[in-house]
């Protein structure tokens, strides 16, 4: 399998890797365009042309994995390679498959999120309503308890009632994730947060929840609300949670 086909294959399998491409070379035996893949354990697939270059590549790629930065790296005198760090795509878990979920999932899919939709009502958590997604019709607590979370996991809690919101947040707040947002009026979200605080969650944990959810763009219709939520996901993914919080604070949302 050639390197590009292997890259497509690794992405399909969601295995993170660094694709190094020689961009500048002063050495006649190393042609620009040569590629090699380094996996997260440092193992190499393909070769840049010489053993000493490959050994240096593995070490440098491991560093690049840590800071996740795509950049030009000088591998050896006169040899520069571009390190494309390709980690698994961001994954969105949507708790609640009601009328906001439909446009939300559509927008999130089109900007490259893998999406899991969860609801305990099988007629709502119906694959026909959510093409190209994993759809789970199961009790919120049980499904979330089984689910793997990680630094690329984004969670949107938009269930039909505050009791379900509490169930979802109770299950996920202790887990590592990139983002968690909770829908609701100020009154409803305050009730949810109070219940969680009584259950023993610290304020610090609760501060992580983006609520009321979404960037403040004055959204009203389900589609507009979905757009505001997806905008917040883009902001957190590209610029980090601090910028998303700043945008909210600018209009006085600071729960």
């Amino acid at each position: 399998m050639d390197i590009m086909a292997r890259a497509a294959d690794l992405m399909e399998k969601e295995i993170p890797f660094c694709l190094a491409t020689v961009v500048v070379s002063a050495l006649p035996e190393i042609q620009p365009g040569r590629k090699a893949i380094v996996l997260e354990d440092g193992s190499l697939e393909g070769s840049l042309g010489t053993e000493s270059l490959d050994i240096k590549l593995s070490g440098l790629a491991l560093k690049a994995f840590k800071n996740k930065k795509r950049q030009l790296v000088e591998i050896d005198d006169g040899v520069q390679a571009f390190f494309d760090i390709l980690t698994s795509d961001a994954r969105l878990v949507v708790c609640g498959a009601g009328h906001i979920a439909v446009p939300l999932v559509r927008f999130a899919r089109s900007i490259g999120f893998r999406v899991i939709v969860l609801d305990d009502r099988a007629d709502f958590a119906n694959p026909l309503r959510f093409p190209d997604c994993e759809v789970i019709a199961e009790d919120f607590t049980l499904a979330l308890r089984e689910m793997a979370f990680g630094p690329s996991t984004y969670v949107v809690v938009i269930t039909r009632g505050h009791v379900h919101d509490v169930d979802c947040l109770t299950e996920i707040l202790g887990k590592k994730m990139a983002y968690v947002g909770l829908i609701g009026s100020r009154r409803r979200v305050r009730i949810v947060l109070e219940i969680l605080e009584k259950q023993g969650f610290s304020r610090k944990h609760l501060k992580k929840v983006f609520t009321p959810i979404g960037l403040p763009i004055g959204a009203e219709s389900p589609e507009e609300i979905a757009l505001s939520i997806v905008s917040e996901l883009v902001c957190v993914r590209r610029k980090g949670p601090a910028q998303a919080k700043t945008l909210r604070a600018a209009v006085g949302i600071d729960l």
Partner: protein
Amino acid sequence: MNDKEIYQKLAELKDQGIAVCLATIVDTVGSTPREAGAKMIICADGTLYGSVGGGCGESEVRSSALRSILTTRKPELIEINLTDDIGTREGDVCGGTMQIFVEPLMS
């Protein structure tokens, strides 16, 4: 198009035996429309997939890509300068420069 879709598209075009070129932003200085890692596929008939920044410098990338697919068969590293003065007709005024690696991927 995200990276996964770009790589899938490359694999698909290759299976079809279509000569393509991949342009990747490898370095940026100052304000540029996209960051390092943004990619665009250029086919020999001019079809594009993905983007390295829309109008800004795109025609230079296309020329480089067609040259490398059709003539030289070698990759090129080009610098796109987006520091035209404000007021220049159709000028690229984003303010930065970007290095774009343009490589032919033959089947």
